[in-house]
């Protein structure tokens, strides 16, 4: 192992050794091609057994962050320029199969189930990345998933593409659970689902977490994400703008106004002013402070 270059990295090295089952993203810089920088120094921690949410608008870098953790950046021609991702003390170096072997499995945005394959084959595919080749363990994993999602057992022989959106989301999550992950990465699980189904998915996420799986949840549905998670980070143009306990964030004016659809009513600044100008003043003078919040900047969606 090369000697740590900075104090921050030295600190990270000692921490990863002591925190089992923790995901630690440290000062991550990611760019696509040679020019488009998607993340500028993002740091994030998911302690074992917790749910951590990442919020942000389109293009904020949420999916890029997940790709860096799951090791699929290369498929999008992205590269990690600086920073590290550790899980359970193991450095994840951009190889998807190794991330899965380490116990980190991602449910992709838009579900991405194998539509022409049967439900059962989709689940079998989810088991391919696990170290085990035993049929008994495959069956056991499948029974666990069927217990969690009875609807999948009913439709096991059906082509996956013919199920409803909510069922497909359940299949995508069940497929990921086949590898018995210790950390589940969820990319927009509520995308395109009816409100009732969003509720159902939220319950399922809570159940999965209750069984001991840590969860990193990326969402645009901030109400759902803040309700589910213990802590949350808000990404904006590739940087963490806000970070804190979810309850505090849900109460913060910025988040309420921008993500929870409430009108902003304070005297500071002009809410209707041109976005760029408002942002410029806010960036130089953070206007909101709250318990547990760090680096509060003016949010400009």
């Amino acid at each position: 192992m090369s000697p740590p270059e900075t104090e921050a990295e030295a600190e990270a090295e000692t921490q990863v050794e002591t925190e089992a089952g923790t995901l630690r993203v440290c000062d991550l810089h990611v760019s696509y091609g040679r020019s488009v920088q998607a993340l500028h120094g993002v740091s994030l921690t998911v302690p074992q057994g917790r749910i951590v949410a990442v919020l942000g608008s389109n293009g904020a870098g949420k999916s890029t962050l997940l790709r860096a953790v799951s090791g699929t950046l290369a498929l999008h021609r992205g590269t990690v320029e600086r920073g590290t991702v550790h899980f359970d003390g193991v450095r994840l170096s951009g190889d998807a199969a190794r991330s899965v072997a380490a116990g980190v499995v991602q449910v992709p945005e838009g579900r991405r189930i194998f539509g022409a394959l049967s439900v059962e084959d989709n689940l079998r595919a989810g088991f391919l990345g696990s170290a085990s080749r035993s049929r008994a363990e495959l069956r056991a994993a499948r029974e666990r998933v069927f217990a969690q999602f009875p609807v999948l057992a009913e439709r096991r022989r059906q082509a996956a593409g013919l199920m409803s959106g909510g069922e497909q989301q359940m299949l995508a999550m069940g497929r990921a659970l086949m590898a018995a992950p210790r950390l589940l990465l969820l990319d927009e699980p509520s995308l395109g689902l009816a409100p009732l189904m969003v509720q159902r998915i939220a319950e399922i996420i809570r159940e999965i977490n209750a069984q001991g799986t840590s969860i990193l949840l990326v969402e645009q549905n901030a109400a759902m994400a803040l309700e589910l998670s213990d802590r949350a980070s808000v990404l904006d143009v590739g940087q963490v703008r806000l970070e804190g306990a979810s309850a505090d964030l849900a109460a913060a004016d910025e988040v309420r106004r921008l993500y929870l659809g409430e009108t902003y009513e304070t005297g500071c600044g002009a809410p209707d002013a041109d976005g760029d100008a408002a942002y410029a003043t806010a960036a130089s003078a953070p206007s909101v402070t709250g318990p547990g919040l760090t680096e509060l900047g003016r949010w400009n969606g």
Partner: protein
Amino acid sequence: MIKLTETVLNGLALGSVYALIALGFVVIFKASGVMNFAHGSLLLFGGYVTARLHDAIGFIPAVLVGAALAAALAGLVQLLATRGLRGAEIHTLTILTIGVDVLLSTELNRQVGADYLTMGDPWGADVTRLGSITVADARIASIAVAIIVIGAFFAAFRWSRWGLSMRSAAADPEAAALMGIRLDRVRLIAWCVAGALAALAAVFLAAFPAPGLDRTTSQIALSAFPAAILGGMDSAVGALIGSLVIGLTAAMAAGYQNELSVLGAGFSDVAPYLVMVLVLLVRPTGLFGSKELTRV
């Protein structure tokens, strides 16, 4: 009636050989999205190895070595494509296979020269008579071997871990990668399987009643191309059905060429392409090409 039966048997034999070629074509296309234009020279290479070795080590070992070397060569092409040209576009890789084809076929043509190389197969020019029907033993063997090999292929495709990895990776590479499936490995195995199948096909293409392996044998692989397209290019079942259709068409057109002489000599060479065009006019995605199976 006798002639019809013989023609159909010939067609099935031809179709079974085409199926070995077309399946390889489709497997490569499914796994890596590349149209492998070097398939004909891979086939010639496998056949050439078998032809050179059978005197020394016997027919069956020579076929196995030929298949293994063709598989290795195909794997090498894939490694060159992924390691050497990492991140290159699919189209670039397709063009690359044309370059590989030119290199390989030039060298093989030099080696083979104007000769017909024998395969040393045990069937020779023997024929079997069933009543008044006469069939070459080599054709019966090609049907039997193709049924066994293709059956094994489909079983592996359906039930094995590799088959599932392959189908998942073809359906959605990124989602497959997220399941921990190693895309590079799936592609490598696909190319190797295709190379081995092509080498096997070469043996039967060169067997009786063909005079032997010569440098035009690789062009026969071109006839398997309409078979793959006809079947839908990304469907293994389609490749099989397409091959049988093309094989029967070619055999019929050759068997009844006197009756078809209105259409000109050599119609049997054109017939497969004609069938392909007609099918594509009705079904642009081929017989079994992927339909969209999604619900939003």
